């Protein structure tokens, strides 16, 4: 079976990056931003 190596590589890289990001605490930063009103997004500044 001829597998698309680039797709496989990217999927593996994505899994590693997600794990590294969670380990570094980036998910907590996303949560912190998401649960507070984004003033820039709604046009307050």
């Amino acid at each position, binding site marked *: 079976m001829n597998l*698309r190596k680039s*797709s496989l590589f*990217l999927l593996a890289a994505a899994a590693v990056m997600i794990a590294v990001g969670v380990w570094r605490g*980036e998910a907590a*930063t996303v949560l912190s931003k*998401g649960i507070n009103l984004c003033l820039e*997004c709604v*046009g307050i500044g």
Partner: protein
Amino acid sequence: MAENKHRWKIQLAATLASNPFFLNFFEGKIHKGRSKMICVPGLNCYSCPAAAASCPIGSLQAVIGSSKFHFAYYIVGLLILMGVLLGRAICGFLCPFGWFQELLHKIPSKKLSAKKLHPLTYLKYVVLAVFVIILPMTVVNEVGLGDPFFCKYICPVGILEGGIPLSIADSAIRASLGALFTWKSCILLGCMVLFVFFYRPFCKWLCPLGAFYALLNSVSLYRFHIDTDKCTSCGACSKVCKMDVDVFRTPNHRECIRCGDCVRTCPHQAITRTFSLKSTEGKKVKTHEKNS
């Protein structure tokens, strides 16, 4: 005849799944649950009162622009994962703002072709590089925080989903509105006018999320395949494509949002959808070489 009569149901379901807390619209507050730790695949503002999860582009800027991090492994990893699995089918099926553009485009009016404006499709890569990555990373205040430049100065979704409903429901927010709200409202209004006349102009020209997925469209597992034994190069697929893709030449082009109109239009059933890691490209190239 070519249009997928059922795609709107998936778009509606995706919009509701991204925004299930619609009672928050009346209370003028946003959802504060832990589900905001993850991102939805489409462009959906996390300051929309009904949003269950975070916006990937807003989150990317939030992490890059924070004082702790200079690169967002988590968000980039999520975007690559979703992009490699589905590519721009996310734009065609799962993005609430993409659906919003399509709904406005249904308003009866003269419809304009964006084919001659093709160079503008490269603008979204500039927006991704400059406003989402470079500026939040490099223009920082004294404590090392960068602004989310795309969300702040360009994105019309935050005003549509967050700014307008929250300012209606909350007098304190209403009292805080100023020049930035006016600027972003003008952008939203301008975009909405364009949506009526052009098909998905924001996706084609400005969306940084579409730009990211576009880069992965050629390697995504969900893809279109041309059976070159059946294809007569009649061009019917290209004529029906609202994203201006020459489907029979480049079925996995960066601009293809996988709406499937070409699949239904092809008189020879030469276009098929696949979701596989198995490569079919080698066979196709050989057949093309044989034909030429």
